[in-house]
């Protein structure tokens, strides 16, 4: 029991100071280049996609590495059928011409994983 409490205190000290997260748990912002090139940051929602695809489709078959920011996604690649473009090709899902559906984020958001109903630091824990 003592061990549990010690961990809990540690956890609470990490958990509480953060600002409450409003974003849906697992939402990803991709903004390595978008904003610099005049587009809104991209928002990718895990909740929406996991209703339709198991994790293994993206993270095994299609090869997305499980670390935000580690896949160097370029718009030209998407149009050529890589990354999001493996599905957003007008076949599995609507095509890359619908810019605003992906580029829908608030300006100024850094690349990262967001969200959580009570944890403040997804991506860390």
């Amino acid at each position: 029991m003592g061990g549990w409490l010690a961990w809990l205190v540690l956890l609470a000290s990490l958990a509480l100071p953060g600002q409450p997260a409003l974003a849906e748990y697992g939402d990803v912002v991709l903004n390595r280049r978008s904003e610099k090139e005049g587009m809104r940051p991209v928002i990718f929602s895990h909740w929406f996609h996991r209703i339709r695809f198991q994790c293994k489709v993206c993270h095994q078959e299609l090869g997305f590495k499980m670390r935000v920011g580690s896949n160097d996604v370029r718009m030209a690649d998407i149009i050529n059928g890589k990354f999001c473009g493996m599905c957003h090709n007008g076949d599995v899902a609507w095509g890359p011409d619908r810019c605003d559906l992906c580029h829908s984020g608030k300006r100024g958001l850094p690349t990262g994983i967001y969200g959580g109903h009570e944890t403040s630091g997804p991506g860390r824990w």
Partner: protein
Amino acid sequence: MAVLAAILFSGNVAAAGSWQPLQNDDLHDPASPAIGLLQQPAEALSKLPPDTTGNLVRWVEALEKGHIEPRSNIFPETKINLLDKDILMNLKGGTPIVRFPHRAHTLWLDCANCHDHLFKAQTGGNKLSMMQILQGEQCGVCHGAVAFPLTECNRCHSVPRPGIAKPSATPR
């Protein structure tokens, strides 16, 4: 245990049972033309088995009971690997034993998502630690980011340990 539960659950109360509309989520630009076209989380998620944390959805249950049918592959030739085997961990520590279910994981993930770059495929062959998990390594690669968060101690530490007075009686 009661103290633990009380502290843990107190953190959940305020947020439980609601999804932010996209225009208020601090992520989507309320002025984006996508608002109104994108699906609102509440519309999709409120129909699934409820949880108190994360996406407020019990994802394993949703899949097992057929509420959702996420595709397992895009290419027809991809081999689907499933395994139904539980692993018990931390058999000597002071916390309830961790039960790692392969079944629930391989319903979502492929073996190669974990083996061998995160875990050697050998019971007891990995040095796992809660500190590293909390830092986003090991189980924490997914739990705390996309899978249910680390505040849910009991979902991993799920097997009660017989009285600490006789730890050697712990079943294997």
